[in-house]
């Protein structure tokens, strides 16, 4: 949607700018000056702003994350046919939007979390093109319960069940990681030995 809006803006700008290149005498009259201001200032700034929104939106998509070769195995792990695998069961049961699967769980739900995620993404790009991708990919910092609780906190299925109820404070304070018990995550090392779900993406 944003892409189409930007394309329309770009085409409109290029047509008007082209007109000004072909008929420079237009800028001699007031109407031409206004046209030049719109074509050479207002429209390009709008196109740039909308383009930024479109790019940032696209950067949250699963397809964007998986377009880097080292991430392919992690994308594949979302299709492990075993409900005990947390990312796979979230992806396959629509507990997270499939088209924003990576971003939903790996963004930081604190203040400026989105910005931090974008900066991390730029760092990944740099390593991908100019550095060496590590053999084993690990998170920059331990996975924070805050990211799980962003959805699960206040959900009846979480709050009223044992043992969440008993250790709610420790989970909320990040003193005990959700991953202590829910420890089947992407497991890309053993992916070859597992069965995969062939459902829609």
């Amino acid at each position, binding site marked *: 949607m944003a892409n189409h809006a930007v394309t329309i803006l770009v085409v409109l*700008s290029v047509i008007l700018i082209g007109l000004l*290149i072909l008929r420079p*005498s237009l800028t001699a009259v007031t109407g031409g000056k206004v046209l030049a201001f719109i074509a050479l200032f207002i429209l*390009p700034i709008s196109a740039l702003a909308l383009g930024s929104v479109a*790019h940032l939106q696209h950067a949250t998509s699963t397809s964007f994350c998986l377009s880097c070769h080292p991430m392919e195995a992690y994308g594949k792990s979302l299709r492990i046919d075993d409900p005990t695998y947390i990312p796979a069961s979230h992806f396959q049961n629509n507990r997270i939007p499939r088209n924003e699967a990576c971003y939903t769980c790996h963004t930081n739900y604190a203040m400026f979390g989105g910005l931090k995620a974008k900066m991390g993404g730029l760092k990944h790009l740099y390593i991908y093109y100019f550095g060496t991708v590590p053999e084993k990919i690990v998170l920059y910092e331990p996975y924070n319960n805050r990211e799980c609780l962003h959805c699960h906190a206040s959900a009846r299925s979480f709050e009223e069940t044992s043992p969440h109820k008993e250790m709610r404070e420790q989970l909320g304070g990040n003193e005990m990681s959700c991953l202590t018990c829910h420890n089947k995550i992407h497991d890309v090392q053993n992916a070859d030995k597992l069965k995969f779900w062939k459902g829609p993406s």
Partner: protein
Amino acid sequence: MMVESSPRLQQRLKIAAYLLIAGLVLEAVTLYWSSPLSFILFAGGAGTLIGLGIIVYLIAIAAA
């Protein structure tokens, strides 16, 4: 009333116009190119060209 604009102003407007067209076309390309590099090309390439085009345009009208 039609007043002839100076050749210098027209030349600057032309430079701004070419920079903006190049930047806008590059922006359109990056939007449909599904690669991790597309964002870099958008921010570094299209953003720079459009920014320069706008600056040249503003200088042109300020100096006119």
